[in-house]
Structure formats: C-alpha cells, structure tokens
C-alpha cells in the first residue's frame, strides 16, 4: 500500500468514524428528549425519578413534608433509614412526614409467616395533598402493603405500587374503609404510573423487591438514597 492509498484508507476510516459518532450524538440527544416526555414512566436513568416528576412546570416543588401512613400486615415492623442506617423499628401502621420528591429507603421485618426475612422498599412522594388547615395528620397519604405484596417481593419479584387519589367523578362505588386499598393491576407492558394518571392523581410510589444490602455488614451509602430527613409523627 503506497502512501496515497494509506492516506485514502485513513480518510475513509476517519470519515466513517465521524459519521458514526455524529449519528450517536444526535440519536442520544433525541433519546434523552424522548425520555423526558412527562409521565411516560421512563425517567432518565441516573437521575432521581421523583425529582423529574416533581420538577415539571406547575408542580409543587420539593420542600413540603407530607404526612404519609404506611400500612403493612399486622405485626410487621417498619424502620426508615436515617444517616445511612436503619433506626428505630415501628410497628405498622407508621405515620411519618416525608419530603416531597425525595427517595426514602425503609426496612420491613417481622413479616408474617416469614420470620427472619427482610425487605427494603423505596418510597417516593410525588404530590402533596391539600386538606383543610389542621387536618393534615388526619388525612395522610395512605400506602397499603398487603401480605401478597411482601411475599411476592420475597419470592424475587419486583412489586411497584403507585398510590393515587381517586377522581371523585369516576370513583368506584365501593367501600373504602373495608378491606384493603382499592387496587388495580397493571398488566405486562403497561405503565402503572400512566394508569394511575388516568384514574386520578398519583401521589406516591413504593417499590419493593430486587434490592438487598450486602450481607457483609457494610452497606453502600447510595443504598439509602442519601437518607433524606423525615418527621416521625407516630410510633
């Protein structure tokens, strides 16, 4: 290969490399743009999803403590992460004030029929509520975890629950004070957040299963999502 051929070969390689690089850049930016479509359930990887959701124009900004009541089967113990470790365990139900838009890690123990097993769900508050003044603690966001949820997570499944406020105009005429929280199942390929938006106003997301801290004792700090502050409202 003479010098002219080498130059031509290098030029071709350089040209093709640039084309591929250009295609990659344009495609990646479009990909990011497409991912930013609100409420598609496809947040940008690596960026706090709650921050993305809560940051859309017009949404309440972070900074509000929202009373949240976590209901788990009787006897279950719940502990929130504070300063990268799980502190005091509280029997369900747990009334706690959580920051809007922050991710919280909690630990669930004493699961009925599964002694010694633990789960480490993540909770995110998407929206606040607007009760009359003085009624905030009386009407917290209610997150119900069923025994089936816990057992599915223990069996290796990943369970996502999107909690939403029912639209009074099309709410189901069922008793809300009896039995478990009215629940709709998202089928394979469906986005639970989108379904919740169709049915009402999503206010919280809880995900459990799929993650467990290392058994060696040391837990990476990111596991705790930074241990955002919370207010323990009731033991």
């Amino acid at each position, binding site marked *: 290969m003479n010098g002219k051929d080498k130059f031509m070969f290098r030029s*071709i390689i350089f040209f093709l490399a640039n084309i591929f690089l250009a295609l990659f850049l344009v495609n990646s930016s479009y990909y990011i743009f497409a991912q930013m479509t609100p409420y598609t359930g496809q947040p940008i990887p690596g960026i706090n999803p709650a921050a993305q959701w809560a940051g*859309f124009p017009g949404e309440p900004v972070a900074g509000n403590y929202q009373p949240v009541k976590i209901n788990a089967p009787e006897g279950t113990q719940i502990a929130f992460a504070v300063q990268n470790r799980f502190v005091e365990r509280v029997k369900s139900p747990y009334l706690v004030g959580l920051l809007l838009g922050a991710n919280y890690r909690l630990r669930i123990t004493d699961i009925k029929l599964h002694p010694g097993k633990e789960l480490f769900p993540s909770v995110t508050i998407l929206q606040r509520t607007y009760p009359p003044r003085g009624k905030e603690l009386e009407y917290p966001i209610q997150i119900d975890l069923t025994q089936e949820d816990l057992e599915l997570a223990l069996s290796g499944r990943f369970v996502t629950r999107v909690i939403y*406020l029912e639209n009074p105009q099309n709410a189901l005429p069922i008793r809300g004070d009896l039995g478990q929280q009215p629940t709709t199942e998202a089928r394979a390929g469906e986005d639970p957040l989108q379904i919740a938006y169709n049915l009402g106003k999503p206010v919280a997301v809880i995900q459990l299963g799929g993650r467990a801290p290392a058994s060696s004792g040391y837990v990476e700090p990111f596991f705790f999502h930074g241990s955002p502050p919370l207010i323990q409202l009731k033991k």
Partner: protein
Amino acid sequence: MWFQIGRLSCAVLIFCAVLSVLFGGSCLQQSSLNPVDPFALNPVLQLDNQQVERLPVQNSNQNPSQVAAISQVNNQVNNQVNNVVPVLANNVNKNNIANTTENRSILHAREIRQVTFAGDMARDNYRYNNYPVNSSGNSSGNPAANPTVNSSGNFPVNYQNNNVPVNYQNGYQNNLPVNSSGNFSGNSSENYSGNLRNNSSSELSSTYLGNSNRDVLQVSLQTSRGADASGVSGVSGDNSGIKIDPALNDVGAGVLNAGVLNNEFNGVWRPGANFGFWPNAEYLASGGDGNNGVGGGLGNSGVMVDRDWNVSNFEVGDTVAHYDTVDGRTEVESSNRLNIYAPRFAAVRKVEGVVNTDHTTALAEVNQQVRTGTGKTAEKAGRATQEFVAGYTRGRDDLRGMRARVTGAALETNQAIGGYSNFEGVSLYADTLRLMKLGSAEIIHLAEGCENAREWQGASGIKIKASYRAPMSMSAEKGVGQLFKIDDSAISDKSKLRLIKVASKRTAKSGDIIEFTLRFDNLGTEPLGNITIMDNLTTRLEFIQGSAMSSVPSGFVVESNGVSSFTLRFEITDPLEAGQFGVVQFRCRVL
C-alpha cells in the same frame, strides 16, 4: 479529495455535536427543578369566626366618620390576621346604607361560595401589574379632583386614616385601586374620577380590596335576583339602592377582565398549562348545577326541565329544584355547592420478575445410515439445550374499571317519607335554616368547604351576578347593619325559589355518615307549585335507606342515575305560598 471528505466529516461532526448539546441541554434543563417560588409554600390565611365577623364591607359613600369607624375595625382585624385588608364595596348609594359602626358582610346564601381566602393575590396583583396596586404605602394623599392616573399603580385614591380602603365614587367598573399598607394621609372627602372607566349611568356594586403585602380577603357579592323594597326586610319603601348593571354576567365581566382574573385570582399556586392537577380530587363536590356556572362549571347550559318535567343536563353531583309558577312556567333553581374534604387513596400495582426458563429444544434422534461404496457411517444428532429468558412476566389480566354496586337496585322506588317538622337538631345551621339569618357561624360553615377547595383552585375573582328575578332578602346582624338593594324596576318576575344545601360534616373519611339538609324558600309574591327537589349523588355517596325526611308533605323517589349511584327526588305535594319554606333531609355514607 479524501482530504476534503475528511474535512467535511469533521464539519458534520461539529454540527451534530452542536445539535446534541442544544437538544440534550434543553432536555436536561427541563429535568432540573423549577425555581422555588417563595410564595408557593406560604400558608393560606384562615380566619376564625370572630375575625371574619369583624370584616366589614365598606361603602364609598359612607361619611368619613363611618369610614373611620370601619377603619378602626379594619385595623383591629389587620392586627389579628396580619394585615388583611377588608373589602370595599364601591358605588353603594349611601341612602341605602344605614348608619352603623357594626359593619358586617351581608351575604346571601348564594354568595357564600364566593367567599375565598385566596392567598397572596395582592402580591400577584403587584407581580402581574395588571392591577392598580399601591404597594408601598407611600402614596401622597390629598390628590386633586380628577387627577391623572399613572400606570404604576399610584392611582388616585381617597384615603382615610390608616388602612382605609380606597373610596370610589360614581361607579367605576374596572381596575379598583388598592390601598395596600395604610399610613396614608389623604383627603377623605375627595371624589376622584381619573382614567378609570366610569359607569355612573348604571351603578355597580362590587366588593373588593387587596392588600399588597399579605393575604387578601376576597368577597364576591353575587346577587342572584333583583329585589323590590317589599322583599327586603327593614327597608320597606326604599327604592334607592345598588343598581346592578344588567349587562353584567355572573363572572363579573365588566368589573374585572379575564386577564385580571387569570392572573390575580388563582390562589397560591396553580399547575402549569400542560401538566398538573387541581386538588379537587380530594374534595367531594355536592350541590349546585355543574353546568351553568353556578356550581363551578364552565358551561352555559344547566339543568333543564320541560313542561312534562323531563329533566336534562342533570349531572352527577347536581342539586336542583324545579317548580311551576302561577303563569304556567317551569323554572329550575340550583342550590349552592358543597365541597367536602374526603380523599380516597387507591393503588395501581405491577408485579415484575424475570423468570429463567429452561427451554429444551430436542431434535429427533436421527439414525441415518449412509451407505457408500466404501463403507457406512452412522451419525447421531446431539441434544441441544438452550436457555431462554422470558421477555416479560406473566401478566395478570384482571378486569379494570369493574364497578361493584354496593347498594340498591336500578329501580325507581317510591318510598315513604318520615314527617320532619322539627329541625331543631340541625344546630350547625340553625339560624340559616330557621330564620334565614346568616350569622357568622353559618357563613363560616357554609363557606368553608368552598373555601378550602377554592384556596387551591383558580378563577375566583370578584363576581357579580345579576339576574332578572324577583327580590332577594338580605340579612343583617346586630342592628340595622348594611343593606344591599337591587333595583328591579325592569324585573317583573314574582316567582322565585331559593335552595340552600348544607352538610353536617366538612371533612369525611370512608364510612362516615353525612347528613344533608336542604331548605327551600318561596321568595316571590306568588305561590309555587309542584316543587321537586332533586339530588344526583356522586358514586362516593351512598344513600342510607329510610333516612329521607321532610318538613312538608312530599313524596320521595330513589332511582338509579346510570353511573352506579342514585338520584333522590323529593316531590313536594302542596304548593308553597309566598314567604313559606320547607326543609328536606337525608343521610349518605361516604364510600
């Protein structure tokens, strides 16, 4: 040539990189949090009964001593509620205002829903600059008559001592100036007529005054009917009074333009144009007519009843009454709308999990003999095992949107109604229901639901509604008080029904029982016949069988409304004479 191609490709690369930065950057920018609005987190002011009780309505033509007295009240209130400046009623004919220092807001039941504490609206006024707000309190007083109005909010105002609202004369419709923080030293006796639109030919009544620093009490006076002197208690024969411009509609057009409404009366925060939801998902609305604007709807077509009493546009949540007049017409009247805080949470669950599956693809064993000339070979196929990972988990295909009926059948049932002559038990609204006197407690109770709902919602500005109906009685407390009268010289309708709806609870959880009470009054001068009161219950209100009662003989019908709930119908048997009233009551369980 290749060198040129290389340079060209570099240019393409740079161009694409720029595109990437532009698009990617904008996207990432979107993902960041919005700038924190310091006002968005401010709590909304809420007054207790006494504070509201002391909020006066001022009138432009009151004499200085009256205004000064009012200002004292204002100051007291301001001290208590952080400079809330009360409301100004301008263009009220002083002949129609009794001298009193016990100024009270005079609100008809239909006006109750308009009472709103809307947060930092005055701040919004200032921000959007669509409103002539004198924010700094440094306006120089004693302006000359007919001064020039400048654009920065220093409108000519008539000041009285401290914190006295602006006094306007001669029926200005638009851009009501605001005296924001007091400390003015103006000339109280001046009348001004700057560049504001003068509508002196048809005097208007409106109530509004903002406070540039803090919260604003926003009171809307909605006069749902005209009034003649005979219909107004205590002022018989007095034909002077507020004259409502017949051109006004119920959102106060002509008083505040749409831009002002959009910009300044939408509460503390509101969702963006594309996303976001109002918190009305948390409030259970009951009553009113959602279609005609009375109950908060945007449409113009409300419930309609034809001569055969066929009802149309009767939507879930509506509460209306229809009746026949002496001259053969069938009229419809809606109640006020209640907003009960009763959130119900539900969940959407998704279970995911990757399942490893051993998928064995077994070929049939082949034993093929190949015979050749030189020999034969036997080949045997092996057994292949291939792992496949499921693309998605097995999904549950549950029914969605299935509605389980809780009670009742879809049949129309005629039920016996219990006599109900003693409504002493409705202590919460005793004055309202018995005497039609709206005291402060009743005002609070009636208003609070709407207030809570509207605190976070938009479009609640000054609203004046004029209709061409018959007279409206006004209530006063502790003496003569203020009196609003409506010029009904062009009104000839003598048939008028008023329907008020109250609830025993303002907040409710699933399972709670709420008692609804409806009072209907014949405010006209002629009897009303075939009065039928209808309530279309939402799906979250379950009627409790046997709970319907009435103070007058009536039939009671429960029928399905087609959306898994019920419509209640009270059919009043006897005509209702002028000045008479009745009460019906029923209970519901919140689902």
